[in-house]
């Protein structure tokens, strides 16, 4: 399982990368592995407000549906529309297939660094 050293991680298995006031959000390798084949994604639209700790969309695998939880509060600047037709990119390249970019970030969930996130994943097995 891959964990990228310079990203931050939410306990709900989203990764976040903050750069120049923009927070890019995706799901982790652990999350995609637990979901199995992702076959559908519901995305917000640019301009929507997202709230830290609350759902901003969902991903569905063959087996089940799972909420996407935002690690930050802010306004959606962009969504990765490629995922609508190719949600399986979340399986094949979880850290490349970003889901949303958030601007005007006002709040953050308690985020873990790579080491702590690795420990969490080990605990959840």
């Amino acid at each position, binding site marked *: 399982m891959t964990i990228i050293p310079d990203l931050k991680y939410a306990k709900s298995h989203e990764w976040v990368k903050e750069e120049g006031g923009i927070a890019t959000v995706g799901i982790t390798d652990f999350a995609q592995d637990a979901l*199995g*084949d992702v*076959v*559908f994604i*519901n995305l917000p639209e640019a301009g929507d407000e997202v709230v830290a700790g609350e759902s901003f969309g969902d991903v*569905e695998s*063959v*087996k089940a*549906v799972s909420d996407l939880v935002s690690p930050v509060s802010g306004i959606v600047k962009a969504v990765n529309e490629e995922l609508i037709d190719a949600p*399986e990119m979340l*399986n094949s390249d979880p850290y490349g297939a970003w889901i949303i970019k958030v601007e005007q970030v006002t709040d953050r969930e308690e985020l873990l660094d790579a080491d702590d996130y690795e420990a969490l994943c080990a605990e959840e097995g």
Partner: protein
Amino acid sequence: MSELKRTQLYNAHLAAGATMVDFGGWEMPIQYPSGIVAEHLYTRKCCGIFDVSHMGRLLIEGPERLKFLQHVLTSNAAALTLNKAQYCIIPNENGGAVDDAYLYQFEEDRYLLVVNASNTDKDLAWFEPIVKNYDCKIRNISGETISIAVQGPESGKILAKLAGVEEVTEPARNNLSILDMEGHKVWVARTGYTGEPIGYEIFLKNEDADWIWNRLMELGAKPAGLGARDTLRMEAMLPLYGDEMGIDEEGNEMPIFGLALARFAVSFDECKGDFIGRKALEKQAAAQTAFREKRGTEADLVELPKRVRPIALKDRGVMRHGMEVFYQGEKVGYVTSATMIPYYKTEGEGAEAKLLEETGKRAIGIAFIRSDIPTNAEVEVDVRGKRLKAVIPLKHVANNVPPYVIPVIAQ
């Protein structure tokens, strides 16, 4: 919590990297590292192998075995000849299902009845007070034997290679044979739960488990888990006990003739006599015929309020078990099984059909809805608070011409 049961192939599943889950008290592979989508598609194009050793295998032996089976099953077991199998349902007096099963006659002097894993104990308890009245016995051989479903266009060739024969059974569904494969005795049935026009279920002694599993993989078959088994059977509209038969979401018994295939599973032949549930089933059958002939009345709705039908989502989304279905604004039932199911795009039809490299996926499944809803009806499904458009097609696949299952895409 009681310990989960394991099949003889448990270590083989772990070695293949399977994700194991609790399935009705059994620790079974839900998927292997390639994933459900790849396993589904490989079965449709080549050959998937499924460990189905968890299912109950019961031998019915003794002079009155046929008389007993005629009483407790819906099918006409007297019509079953040596080396043939038939689908059947274990009915209750109300015309509901205790379980569904497959009856095999591999040998003159006994029948093999294969039942659902999670229902095996219930079925045995159901049979116990009945079988006492007949000069025959039920012997549970589940623990001594294994079973593997070998399914897909290449399955016949793979098994033929192992047996050193041209054809492993007569070339049609429900044929059986007992073969020697590289010195191992294998009971072969041309049956399955994937909708594949070419597919087999094989039975072996426990000690042959690792040998057969490895040989099948060496010859090009790939393991597939319960996840793909579920998507394959949904696409082919094959019912699962607990979803499409048994007790519905509202606690009512689901009528056997709610299933389209009840027509083939239930026989009212005179020689079956007054079998369990016969009277109720006769009424249901008449109502099903009326609805199929588009002349169903209010009285038919009383006998057969709902039927099991295919459903295909037209809007973007995914349907799941339990979601409500609406027709002309009125709630008419619910989704019993559904997810996003992959398929190969195809070219040509029938025996000329070819699978292309390109794949698609579609949100389809099975619904239990009011019996008078016509084919091609536009319905709505409540997908987590949103009403999405769906349709009731005639079928999801065409699978009557080997070697391929051809997807029928709802318009």
